[in-house]
């Protein structure tokens, strides 16, 4: 009887940390969640006054905080992101397909493939501001593309590239070998297989990667400051769309690409660094807009990922 009591006590001692530890763990988690909610609430409440004002979304920046708006900011963000998405997909998807579908892992080509793979892993962890220096040195000063929307799009596309390559590869890797063998067995070439099977089946995963990459790039400030984005833009780029055929004026389109720009995060940075307290309200309001944008992009990516997982069960 006595020994049994002793055993129980020992057992109790052993179990106690198992009760206490999860409480600590949950508390840590709670701390993180409340940090997040405080952040969102703080930005929202600080900017509420401006968020309610419809003129805020349709006005240019101004010397007067009460008149200043984010029109040139969100138009610039839209145009720059359009370019960034275009360039990053152009290189990212084919690079991902190559590494997953064509890589031979043998000989000289195999060595190059290893370098490409290692290189992409490394690019993913290079600080964003380094890409800004790359863009300043190459696009702005050596290619003479100027401090333009085109330069900004190229810069952010390099930032997005590793994320898109990694996600493309993961999506393709999930497709079983049988699908490819079946296609080859009925006489399809490798390209046929990729176009008709590999690409469509992995599209959901690629899209998820694209949205996640874009949601990171849309809030990126440092590389665009480095290439010399302006903070005060009181005009919009020309509208390249024409009413008659071919509906797009190429000279105007080029003007759009070469025009100076500002983006939402840079507008926020500019307002935060001003001494007047009224500009802080603008910064908070624009910050909340940006926060909502990134939140919805991440939610969309999450939703697509769940949906794709349910659609293709191999």
């Amino acid at each position: 009887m006595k020994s049994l009591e002793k055993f129980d006590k020992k057992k109790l001692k052993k179990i106690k940390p198992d009760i206490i530890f999860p409480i600590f763990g949950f508390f840590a988690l709670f701390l993180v969640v409340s940090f997040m909610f405080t952040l969102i609430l703080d930005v929202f409440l600080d900017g509420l006054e401006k968020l309610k004002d419809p003129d805020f979304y349709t006005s240019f920046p101004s010397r007067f905080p009460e008149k200043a708006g984010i029109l040139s900011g969100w138009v610039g963000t839209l145009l720059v992101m359009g370019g960034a998405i275009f360039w990053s997909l152009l290189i990212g998807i084919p690079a991902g397909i190559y590494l997953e579908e064509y890589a031979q892992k043998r000989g000289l080509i195999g060595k190059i493939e290893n370098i490409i793979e290692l290189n992409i892993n490394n690019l993913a962890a290079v600080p964003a501001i380094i890409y800004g220096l790359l863009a300043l040195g190459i696009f702005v000063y050596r290619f003479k593309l100027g401090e333009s929307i085109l330069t900004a799009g190229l810069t952010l596309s390099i930032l997005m590239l590793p994320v898109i390559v990694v996600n493309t590869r993961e999506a393709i890797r999930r497709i079983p070998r049988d699908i490819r063998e079946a296609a080859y067995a009925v006489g399809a070439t490798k390209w046929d297989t990729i176009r008709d099977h590999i690409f469509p089946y992995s599209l959901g995963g690629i899209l998820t990667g694209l949205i996640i990459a874009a949601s990171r790039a849309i809030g990126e400030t440092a590389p665009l400051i480095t290439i010399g984005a302006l903070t005060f833009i009181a005009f919009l780029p020309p509208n390249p769309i024409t009413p008659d055929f071919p509906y797009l004026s190429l000279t105007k389109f080029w003007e759009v690409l070469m025009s100076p720009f500002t983006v939402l995060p840079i507008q926020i940075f500019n307002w935060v660094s001003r001494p007047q307290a009224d500009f802080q309200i603008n910064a908070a309001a624009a910050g909340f807009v940006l926060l909502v944008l990134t939140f919805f992009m991440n939610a969309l990516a999450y939703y697509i990922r769940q949906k794709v997982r349910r659609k293709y069960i191999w």
Partner: protein
Amino acid sequence: MFGSLVYKRILDKFMLAVFFTAGFFTIFITIGIVYVLLTDTLEFFKEVSIKEFLTEKEWTPVFATKKFGIWPLIAGTFLIAVIAMIVSVPLGLLIAIYLSEYASVTVKEIAKPIIEFLEAVPTVVYGYFTLLFVTPLLQKIVPNLEGFNSLAPGIVLGFMILPYTASMAEDAMKGVPQRIREASYALGATKLWTAIRIILPASISGIVAGFILGASRAIGETMVVAIAAGMYPNLTLDPREPIQTMTGYIVQVALGDLPFGSIEYLSIFAVGFTLFIIAFFFNSIALWLKSKIREMY
């Protein structure tokens, strides 16, 4: 029929070339980075000696008497990164063990996206929050805390890198095969004992890889420190004083108009090159640690 087959074969080869070119192109980005950083850094060292760069204790490129000693910037960068790690490592480890060994599926499904979202929040918004919420709050607790300091940005960065320190650590712990856990339970070990003495050592390389990537992220982070840490190169270990990081300096100079080839223009490439080498070093360790996990199981 025959013609279309030939066409198909040519198209197939052509597409292979297209895909390979795209893959190969990614190497050019790194070559471009190294080329730009190296040429402009060498240009910089024609005007400032490497000896001054590495031994001088002051960084005053915007003053009349220009001094180019990188140490204040490196010290500022690492001071913030260390504060971030002091916050992030215990918090991340606690959360990782809790999520991987204790939490129910529901808690996990809610917690994971929230932690991942910490990385998606635009850094300029973190900067605003640090300067106008965290710093005033800390000033009530910490005496003599200045409006610009390294403490507040360090703490916020500590939370920001949790996707690496908590989420990656959890993934590593989850990667330990279930049979190892069962074996430990079968020998009478409690959950906590199993987690700390069995699972933690088994997944340590993955966890440390996450920590190093987190630290690398904190070192390269720009906007939070540019907004909230001040613009004052300061060789100090006091977290209450304003400082400047390497990234903060690049932003400060880039905000002005940069004549191509001027000493200020060249100096940001020298600083950027130093940052690149540090980040590259950290990433290589993390990648090496990650490859070790794959060998294990």
